[in-house]
């Protein structure tokens, strides 16, 4: 075996005292690349070997500060800025509520740095180490003490170093050979790894096929997430009830909260069951404006803004020649000029022929406002000069 294969020399000792004495001798002899090995930490060996305090605490401090800043930033940004939502009246970012998570992250990051920093500084994991293949070294983790000197040390000289170690009261001195062959990963491990990797690709491939392929049947639904529930959906049929509807109708005469109106005429447009005339409340300019606005939104699309029954929907329906289309009524029709206001209100509320009910879209008072505006619209087509204020009458002459 050539000398280049020699990794170093290991000397074994029986107890702490002889180890400490030997370390002192080796260091005095000028060696740099040597180490003492023991089954437990030997107190007081650091100054003897000249080990300087580790940098680890500073790394951990850095990690802790990072954790602190990161946690505060994360909580401020996520809850206070990016996705701000108010909950139980707490400030979006309140320091007292941010402290627990901040504290935990300080500790967690520091602990990670402690553990992984210790490993990294110790160059662990290091599974292939010539020392571990040295015959006598196995007892160092149980009940022996040892000093190892690397052949790479400037002072190392195979024979002299062996002499020095033997002279320190060592039980024995052993050569530590570096074995190049074992650094090569065995073939069977490589093969196994490749086969394992190939097998590991199968599940993702299957998932990808399932998700992105074309299928004629419904896809596999792994996580149903309440997508399929045994419940009746709105507007669907149900065999459970006599009328065949899944939805139940409210009890006859049900009113929503706040919709109860004392005045019968105002609420229904009828007085004692008969359609009434006039308005249930005073009509002023604001009501008229409201009526115009509602009319333009809800009525104008069919009846036209002018009420002549030529709204955009009517025009379009005619152009399509829809056979089932019933043209909207011309609101200036003779008949409508004379019907009681209660009738107009009732039609808006419940609909007539093809016209749907607007009770859901227009509140009771809005419906009266629309009726009022409609009356004004009709009047505009049948007005006489007396209807114009006297000071403006001359404009029409």
């Amino acid at each position: 075996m050539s000398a280049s294969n020699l990794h170093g020399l290991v000397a074994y000792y029986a107890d702490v005292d002889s180890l400490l004495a030997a370390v002192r001798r080796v260091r005095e002899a000028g060696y740099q690349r040597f180490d003492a090995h023991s089954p437990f930490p030997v107190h007081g060996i650091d100054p003897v070997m000249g080990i300087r305090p580790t940098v680890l605490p500073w790394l951990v401090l850095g990690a802790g500060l990072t954790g602190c800043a990161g946690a505060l930033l994360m909580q401020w940004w996520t809850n206070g800025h990016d996705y701000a939502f108010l909950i139980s009246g707490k400030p979006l970012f309140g320091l007292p509520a941010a402290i627990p998570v901040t504290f935990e992250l300080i500790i967690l990051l520091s602990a990670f740095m402690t553990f992984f920093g210790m490993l990294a500084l110790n160059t662990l994991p290091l599974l292939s180490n010539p020392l571990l293949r040295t015959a006598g070294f196995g007892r160092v983790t149980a009940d022996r003490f040892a000093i190892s000197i690397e052949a790479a040390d400037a002072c190392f000289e195979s024979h002299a170093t062996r002499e020095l170690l033997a002279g320190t009261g060592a039980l024995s001195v052993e050569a530590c050979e570096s074995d190049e062959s074992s650094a090569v990963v065995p073939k069977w491990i490589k093969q196994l790894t490749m086969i394992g990797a190939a097998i590991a690709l199968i599940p993702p491939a299957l998932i990808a096929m399932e998700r992105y392929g074309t299928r004629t049947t419904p896809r596999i639904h792994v996580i149903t997430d309440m997508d399929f529930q045994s419940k009746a959906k709105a507007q669907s049929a149900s065999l459970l009830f006599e009328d065949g509807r899944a939805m139940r109708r409210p009890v006859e005469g049900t009113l929503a909260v706040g919709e109860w109106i004392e005045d019968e005429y105002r609420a229904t447009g009828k007085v004692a069951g008969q359609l009434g005339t006039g308005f249930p409340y005073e009509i002023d300019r604001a009501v008229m404006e409201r009526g115009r606005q509602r009319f333009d939104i809800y009525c104008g699309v069919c009846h036209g803004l002018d009420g002549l029954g030529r709204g955009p929907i009517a025009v379009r329906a005619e152009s399509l020649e829809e056979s089932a289309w019933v043209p909207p009524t011309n609101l200036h029709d003779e008949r409508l000029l004379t019907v009681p206001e209660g009738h107009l209100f009732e039609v808006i509320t419940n609909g007539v022929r093809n016209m749907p009910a607007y009770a859901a879209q227009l509140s009771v008072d809005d419906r009266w406002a629309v009726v009022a505006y409609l009356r004004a619209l009709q009047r505009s087509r049948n007005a006489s000069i007396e209807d114009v204020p006297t000071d403006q009458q001359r404009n029409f002459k």
Partner: protein
Amino acid sequence: MVITAATEPKRAHVAAPVVDVLSDDPTQRPPLMTGENDFTSITDDVCGIAEREATPRAWYIAFAASVTGMTVMFAMLGYLIFNGVGVWGNNQPVAWGWPIVNFVFWVGIGHAGTLISAILFLFRQGWRTSINRFAEAMTIFAVCCAGIFPAVHIGRVWMAYYLFPIPNQMEMWPNFRSPLLWDVFAVSAYALTSLMFWYMGMIPDLATLRDRAKGKVRQIAYGIASMGWTGSARQWHRYEKAYLLLAGLATPLVLSVHSVVSFDFAVSQVPGWHTTIFPPYFVAGAIFSGFAMVVTLMIPARQFFGLKHLVTMKHLEIMCKIILATGMMVGYAYAIEFFIAWYGGNPYERFAFINRAMGPYAWAYWTMATCNVLVPQLFWFKKLRTNLWVMMGVCILVNVGMWFERFVITVISLSRDFLPSSWDYFKPTAVDVLTFAGSFGLFFTLFLLFCRYLPMVAMAEVKTVLPQAHAGHGLHAEEPAR
């Protein structure tokens, strides 16, 4: 053939001087271990357990029972995930039923390990070295059991990733002002830190097992696990610093974890939950139950694995004293809570406490008070706290009591809160009971595996408290170990 102390005693224990480890004599420190121990004997005694070729039959029986329990638990969890949380007894008004009780119970047990490893280390308590590995392992396994309950309690477990701030296409973030989210961070940080602490402590001992391993499988497994540790002084230097730092970090962490768990309750306005003493009171209770669990497991383990000279009666006695002390702290909190409930003058708060002691759940309250406050009083007497049977009985009862404490807090306050029309009496379902019982199966399965394959006692640390470990020992060979 591996020779172990159990099969062939190498040393004459008879020759050792008879020392009373329980001595109260202040003029001398009784030794931490009995018998003639040296580096070799400790290595043999501890490694021998993991190296036994034939696994004892008793181990198989215990393992089969534990695995059965664990299987029952996973079956119940599968049933739960398939059917939804409705299979539990949780319902209005008690929306937090057994799962939260079990979570707090297990997390509490998981506190003793880190306390022994970290806080007692900072307090220079040399006796901890015999039991810390054992207690740390117990911590990890208890935290595993604890983590299951809140995870399945969220209902749709496959959505659990929403607990963490992971960027998602809905641009939503978790609510960091919620104590439940603090819990996620606290328990995760605790589980990870305890795991690192436990594993780091084990690296030198795994190296010992590696160097003694005979079979190829063991060599490779222990070799990878010990990461190439050579026990060099430079490694030890950083290792010890890291150990001290982890101990310093774990100490406030232990305090914070159960404090955060207590915040789950205490930040609310529910009578019986909203009280300022909750954080330290929960921490004391956690240590209380954790130590009780360590003693419960340690008594049979030291008997069975022949570790009576390393884990002596002294160790058990000290743990019993700690149980008594923390039990008194818990009793103090009960008393102060009751007093302030009256003194505060809030009728709802007063009602909550009268309801605890005299309402429909009075049986649970008095079980708790008896087991947690009265039973540990036996430990005032030295005869009783050094009797293994009494110890075992008290410690089991303490854990029963601590489960009931969480039950009392969680269920009673919810079952009767501000709205009397929704008051109800909580009843668990069979799924509740089997899941909880099965969680012990998981705990013991992990524990038995640990006992069988890993170093149960921190050999390297125990060696440091032997007198031979100190320089100049040859000059004072007559002194006993402290």
